[in-house]
């Protein structure tokens, strides 16, 4: 197992190297000019030139890449063109909101989707199954921002039960923290509930058709035990896979929700950086996302061996 983990971690090096080169070159090939954006609307071309020189954007591409990559290797991610703060500092400030939103979303999604999926599988073809599948299709089809605006209108504007927007850190009080995460988490969870419940249903239905389930039933085990202990556990591998992929997607996919609810997380930072052509921030955020994907996949692989003793590395 340890050798497997080491092998997988070493395998991430070429992936990250490729991502770094790709992100760097892609941004430079856009021919966008952060200096022009920094200078503002009333600036003259001379002023833009001077800022460009100051930021080192007039250097040859290979030289810019060499400087950036050699700094990244020693843990120096550089400084934002705009904020005059280190990229690491900016990202650290934004990690908590995104992590907390993702965590609440995935907990909510799993707590609802897995039981609902199991229920739909157990009552295959019934009205419960149809409702779950109907909701699932709707969850996939309705855009996140529509759900967000709808929830805001009903629960924040009309009923006034919850805040419209914003984020409070846990250190500012748990009540304030959690109340601002309710609507964003529900908004974001809808699609994951749809996805996980659908996969759970399909996986459990498949497992329920296995011989050992028939044997368990023949032994006279109660239906609840058969369903939860035998069917669900054996159906867990695809469910865990989709939850894991969901977590990875969440980290990079909260952009819309963070924008709709004005949550200052990594998603908003990415959008702001892209709009401002803040190259140092964009490059590191892309790298970070790729690290998250790689690590989440590693954890999923390790989880397989825990859930299914036949899988050994």
């Amino acid at each position, binding site marked *: 197992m340890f050798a497997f983990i080491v092998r997988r971690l070493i395998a991430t090096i070429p992936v990250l190297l490729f991502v770094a080169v790709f992100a760097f070159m892609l941004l430079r090939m856009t021919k*966008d000019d952060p200096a022009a954006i920094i200078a503002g*609307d009333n*600036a003259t071309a001379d002023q833009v030139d001077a800022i460009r020189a100051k930021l080192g954007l007039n250097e040859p591409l290979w030289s810019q890449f060499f400087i950036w990559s050699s700094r990244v290797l020693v843990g120096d991610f550089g400084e934002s063109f705009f*904020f005059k703060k280190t990229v690491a500092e900016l990202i650290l400030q934004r990690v908590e909101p995104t992590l907390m939103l993702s965590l609440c979303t995935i907990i909510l999604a799993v707590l609802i989707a897995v039981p609902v999926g199991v229920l739909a599988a157990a009552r295959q073809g019934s009205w419960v199954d149809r409702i779950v599948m109907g909701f699932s299709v709707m969850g996939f089809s309705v855009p996140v921002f529509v759900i967000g605006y709808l929830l805001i209108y009903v629960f924040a504007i009309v009923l006034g039960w919850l*805040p*419209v927007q*914003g984020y409070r850190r846990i250190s500012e009080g748990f009540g304030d923290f959690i109340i601002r995460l309710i609507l964003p988490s529900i908004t974001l969870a809808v699609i994951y509930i749809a996805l996980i419940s659908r996969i759970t249903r399909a996986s459990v239905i498949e497992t329920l058709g296995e011989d050992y389930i028939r044997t368990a039933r023949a032994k006279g085990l109660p239906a609840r035990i058969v369903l939860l202990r035998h069917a669900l556990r054996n159906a867990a591998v695809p469910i865990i896979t989709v939850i894991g992929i969901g977590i990875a997607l969440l980290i990079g996919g909260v952009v819309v929700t963070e924008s709709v609810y*004005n949550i200052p997380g990594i998603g908003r930072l990415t959008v702001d950086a892209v709009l401002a052509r803040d190259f140092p921030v964009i490059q590191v955020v892309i790298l970070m996302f790729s690290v998250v994907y790689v690590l989440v996949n590693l954890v999923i692989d390790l989880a397989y061996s825990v859930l299914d003793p036949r899988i050994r590395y």
Partner: protein
Amino acid sequence: MAFVTTTLKRALAAAGLAALISSGAFAQTTLRVVKSGNLTILDLIWTTAYVTRDHGYLIYDTLFATDADNVVKPQMVDTWKVSGDKLTWTFTLRDGLEWHDGQPVTGEDCIASLKRWAARDAMGLKLWDFVKELKAVDAKTFEIVLKEPYGLLLESLGKPSSNVPFMMPKRVAETSPMEQIKSQIGSGPFIYKTDESKPGEKHVYIKNPKYKPRAEPASGLAGGKVVKVDRVELIEMPDVQIQANALLAGEIDMIEAPPHDLLPMLKADKSVVIDDWNPLGHQFIIRFNHVVKPFDNPKIRLAALYAINQEDYLKATVGDPAYYKVCAAVFICGTPFATDKGGEILLKSDFEKSKALLKEAGYDGTPVVVMQSTTLPILTNTAPVTKALLEKGGFKVDMQSMDWQTLVSRRTKKDPADKGGWNILHTYSVSADVLNPISTSYMVAAGDKSWFGWPTDPEMEKLRDAFARETDPVKQKALAEKVQLRALETAQYGWIGQWYGPGAHRNNIKGWLKAPVPVFWNIEKTGS
């Protein structure tokens, strides 16, 4: 009996105090404001972005400032005098001016601040052509010595908009103008809380307890800057719909400039007040690229001006006539240098004249590349109007859509339009930026030193110089008129209408000053 009375009085006083405290009268008042853009750069010389300028007005102070009637008034300056030959200007600072770190403000600080500003600002650069030297006379007094009389010295020092000559400590102002400052110490009415501010989330300012406002009542950007709240938070909230919802729900107190299409919704709510804090408004601009075909030909530029008309732009962008005004004057209707002369051609399209001029100029039908910004809502509809009008006037038009950031990157390119360059762009200015021929950056016609589009016109530069030298307001007005006529004769650019972008605030907010810049002194907030 006396003991009983005294005890009763004390008990009542204590009860009253307790009631006051519980009613929130002593509670900290925080003004939560959403600006029209994110504050990313804190050095107001490094960028001309308006949001950075507004940050400057919170924490810095100015030597002079313009009042509600656009008259320059002293601000940090107590007294000033000018020598008989109009070459030596002596300024004495008010008593008790202090930086946020407790150090006194000195003439040396002001000299260093002015030098840094003049290295970057268009009006500062022009002033510096006339400056011989600056010297500190004593701790509170400094002099500006000119090579020859200059008519806009006070107007330059009291320039209201980007870049504003804000005063900062000498050690900070000595930072190269090509590098960003790292300190946020000013002497203004608010103190920036670096430790509490989080870029992309919020910026926090607290009341400067040591600030000494002038005795005069606040007027425009001048007068006593009396702070009536304890704290200002600039909340960064990019989504305009969420801004409106947050205001309706009372989560924020003010929105600087909600989009025009949201105003009816906000107006309909009794808890919200629409407030036109900037009576001068803004001006739309159409800019030609003078260095590439076909607009290197002045007749073709003129043909374009004949094809357009202000009303069509204003209807398409603002919509509600309550918030726009057609105005033939380049230097903003209702201000001292405004004149209608020659500007009539911008009020009504004359497609036949446009076609005739194109024929005369030998226009070969090469498509004109019009850049359209799709991410600044107020500008989005300008390009389609230009396309429609120019096509009616005989042009072929290739409108290319892009986000604003791509547009500002591309506008720096002098390549031919079909090789990554451009022919036409649209933008807008706060009217306070375009009140005279020197502060109006679009009027500079000095080739590479001009604003994007790079017009070259020695005659225009002569007129601007003459205006700068002139000290007689009547003669200045005549020169401003000549500048306008020259700009139209050479079709240097087009001013395509004035518009107003009111703010919105909760009805417990009072005292938002009428000024070209949103400022937060004088504002009162009742309740929490």
